[in-house]
């Protein structure tokens, strides 16, 4: 607990200072991608790492958040921060309904049905041309007004800090979730569902709450992404986002708060570095994943999960 808090605060300090060191536009762009990924991974980890169910449909909420922000911005001209908040709410509501259905299932059934929900939403986004503009997507999401006069670099730095602020909020919520009775309840459910029930924990309600919080975070990430790229297409519901989320969380260490912060940093940097290898990069990436699963199955930060709480003796 204390180690995680110190580590996260240290990481925050580094992240605040980082753009001041005079990096190129490209480096800041990578930083923005990392921020986006941390939001996604932190939310996803609440489901995979704490509730202990494997969702393959978390992109549903990423997409819902992205489309919410895109539509609010392009057709109503709403400002970025309003859109992000709205995306969080809409994704949370969607998470409530999808979670209410899917969390009645467990294990492989849960995996398949969540995947179906994401896939259905992708097909809807592809075909409901009147609302989503179909495969063309929604382009021209306006940048915030204050960015109009700025250089491309300064715009990216602004987005970096917006992302960092959102990450801070997401990680704070995740931290509070994990280190309160809520986190204890979901960990109890994860470790032994029957014991959880016998001591008065209703597994369904706590799993659902975690699912809703995770959905809201994915929604925030989607809205942030929409404004940054200023384009949203049906691919936000696609499986590649899901795969990178899984890799980030597993590599970093599921069931820890640091894991989904470190995982995205490594994965995004690796993805960028391996660009030079063209098509070969996916194979190299695959090998890295295999190595992680074989040699550090608990993730790089797995050791944190092994020591979660101790009683401070007087």
């Amino acid at each position: 607990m204390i180690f995680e808090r110190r580590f996260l605060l240290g990481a925050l300090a580094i992240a605040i200072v980082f753009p001041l060191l005079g990096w190129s536009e490209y480096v800041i762009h990578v930083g923005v991608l990392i921020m986006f990924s941390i939001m996604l991974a932190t939310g996803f980890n609440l489901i995979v790492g704490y509730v202990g169910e494997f969702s393959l449909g978390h992109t549903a909420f990423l997409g819902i958040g992205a489309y919410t922000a895109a539509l609010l911005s392009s057709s109503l001209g709403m400002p970025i921060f309003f859109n992000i908040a709205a995306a969080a709410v809409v994704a949370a509501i969607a998470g409530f309904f999808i979670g209410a259905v899917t969390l009645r299932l467990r294990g492989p059934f849960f995996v398949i049905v969540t995947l179906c929900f994401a896939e259905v939403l992708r097909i809807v986004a592809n075909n409901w041309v009147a609302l989503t503009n179909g495969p063309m997507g929604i382009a021209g999401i306006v940048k915030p007004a204050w960015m109009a006069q700025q250089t491309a670099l300064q715009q990216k730095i602004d987005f970096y800090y917006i992302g960092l602020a959102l990450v801070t909020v997401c990680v704070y919520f995740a931290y509070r979730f994990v280190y309160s009775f809520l986190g204890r309840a979901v960990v109890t459910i994860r470790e032994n569902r029957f014991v959880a029930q016998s001591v008065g924990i209703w597994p369904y309600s706590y799993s659902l709450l975690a699912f809703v919080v995770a959905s809201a975070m994915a929604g925030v990430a989607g809205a942030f992404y929409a404004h940054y790229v200023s384009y949203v297409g049906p691919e936000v519901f696609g499986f590649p986002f899901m795969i990178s989320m899984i890799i980030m969380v597993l590599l970093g260490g599921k069931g820890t708060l640091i894991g989904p912060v470190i995982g995205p940093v490594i994965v995004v940097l690796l993805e960028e570095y391996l660009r030079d290898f063209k098509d070969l990069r996916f194979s190299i990436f695959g090998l890295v994943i295999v190595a992680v699963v074989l040699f550090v199955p608990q993730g790089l930060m797995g050791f944190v999960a092994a020591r979660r709480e101790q009683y401070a003796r007087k």
Partner: protein
Amino acid sequence: MLQVDNITKNFGGITAVADVSFAINKGEVVSLIGPNGAGKTTCFNLITGFYRPTAGRVQFEGTDITAFDPHRVARLGVVRTFQKTNVLPRLNVFENVLAARHLHGETSILRAFFPGKAVRVREKRVRDEAADLIETLGLLARIDTPAESLSCGELRLLEVAVALSAGPRLLMLDEPAAGLNTQEAERLADILKQLVGTRVDALLLVEHNMSLVMSVSHRVVVLNFGRKLMEGSPEQVRNSAEVIEAYLGKPVE
């Protein structure tokens, strides 16, 4: 406190429990015994809502809890253990007991995300209570040990601690002495005797260790093939020809 009326449970064509009735009063230790497959654990599952009875009724302090979900039964103060692994194996002793204290540390969801002083005070109290309970059961030396690394005897104590931590009024233990040697079982018996009246109002025990059953119980209910064979004091049960027959069979004539 607990009133079980004519509960029956069928699994397809098999009747696991048929027409069983018994009651537990405040301050009592009641044991449920019987040969393997007699329906003892099924009775536990029926009372605590893990199974729905095919027929019959379960009441706890006047409330009909027959159709309640397990967590609601626990909320009313009926907490049971499981025959196999009643702990969270990867968590340490303290985390186990703390997790089971859930009902006492609950606040609103908003408070969980934005805790005030009241929440911190409460959190501290819950932690102190958990540590206190661990000390009572003599596990203080093992407080940081993961449950999966405990010895069998310590594990059984932790199981009792986890159930007690939930703050039950009626504690239901399913084979708490399984795998214990004579000394350890005696120590457990001492602990169980002290529980009633201090930490819990009544105790329902399923146990195969007869010396433990006879030394702690006020009343014993004997099941055989899903039916109630008899009910009485430990002496009555010990001397009953029917019970001896159920366990050992009839002599060949």
